[in-house]
């Protein structure tokens, strides 16, 4: 085998290795249950402060990633707000508005009378850290900050949210019973 052939073979092998690495990296999607959920300190909505998932340590959290331009986010919002009002003593809901205009996001919050905490992820970096595949997407986070469940897509109704958040609702109910 002459030098030229060796160089060509090495080049092709290198290219194949590079493409394989790309495919493997692309396949690395989604957080795994039990993993710590990434945290990021981001501006709040309405503007004026900063907040992070880490601020909710010790509580169960339903982290909901949304955007005002997203139709399914509009669809699930009333149910999510109702769920939060009915269960706010058992878990916190934290909204993450991603890749959105702040004015549009505020209109959305007012339109659906959303009362739970919101943080703004304008550049989408936090959504990327969470490895979301779109919006809306929800994550159930335990009091230690670890992922318990993941729900890509919109909740159909309040029952589907209760089903998703069942581990949190059951754990807090059990803790309440023990306290009595």
């Amino acid at each position, binding site marked *: 085998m002459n030098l030229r052939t060796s160089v060509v073979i090495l080049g092709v092998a290198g290219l194949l290795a590079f493409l394989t690495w790309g495919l493997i990296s692309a396949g690395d999607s989604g957080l795994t249950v039990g993993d710590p959920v990434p945290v990021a300190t981001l501006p709040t909505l309405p503007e004026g402060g900063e907040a992070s998932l880490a601020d909710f340590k010790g509580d169960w959290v339903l982290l909901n990633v949304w955007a*005002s*331009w*997203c139709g399914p986010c509009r669809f699930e919002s009333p149910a999510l707000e109702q769920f939060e009002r009915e269960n706010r003593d058992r878990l916190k809901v934290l909204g993450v508005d991603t*890749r*959105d*205009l*702040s004015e549009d996001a505020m209109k959305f919050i007012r339109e659906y009378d959303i009362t739970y905490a919101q943080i703004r992820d*304008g*550049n*989408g970096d936090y959504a990327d850290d969470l490895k979301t595949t779109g919006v809306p997407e929800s994550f159930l986070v335990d009091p230690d900050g670890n992922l318990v469940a993941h729900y890509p897509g919109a909740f159909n109704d309040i029952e589907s949210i209760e089903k998703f958040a069942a581990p949190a609702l059951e754990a807090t109910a059990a803790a309440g019973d023990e306290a009595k």
Partner: protein
Amino acid sequence: MKRLPGLLALLAVALVALTFPATSSAAEPQASLPQLEDEVMCPICGTLLGLSRSPAAERQRVFIRAMIRDGADEEEIKDALVAEYGPQVLALPDDEGINLYAYLVPILGFILGGLAVVWAVVRMRRNRKKDPPAGKPGPGPPSSESERLDADLARYDL
């Protein structure tokens, strides 16, 4: 050799003109949606805004149109978009890490290209020096050939 300084000066002017084209226009560019669509990214699609029809892109267009209506210039609109979506919204690579090459490689290309032109000109001049000076003919054909050529030419003499 007299032409070399002129060529070098021309090359320098061309390089400066290509490297700093924006400095020649003092006036602030008039903002327009089609132009900005080619200069900013859609926040969710990973493409230029002009190539996207996603709902997020449509909201971005509404935002830009409103700013143009309010009299904002291109830089003000870009600043506002960066405040909303972060610097990634600009269709320009970062000037950090590997993205820095996007800026360095063209500059290096210009420099290397300029050096190559200078080198080629100098080499050409040197080669010309080696050639016999004009007006001093070479050895020419042998005398027998010359005589034959003269005879041939004489036949066509009218």
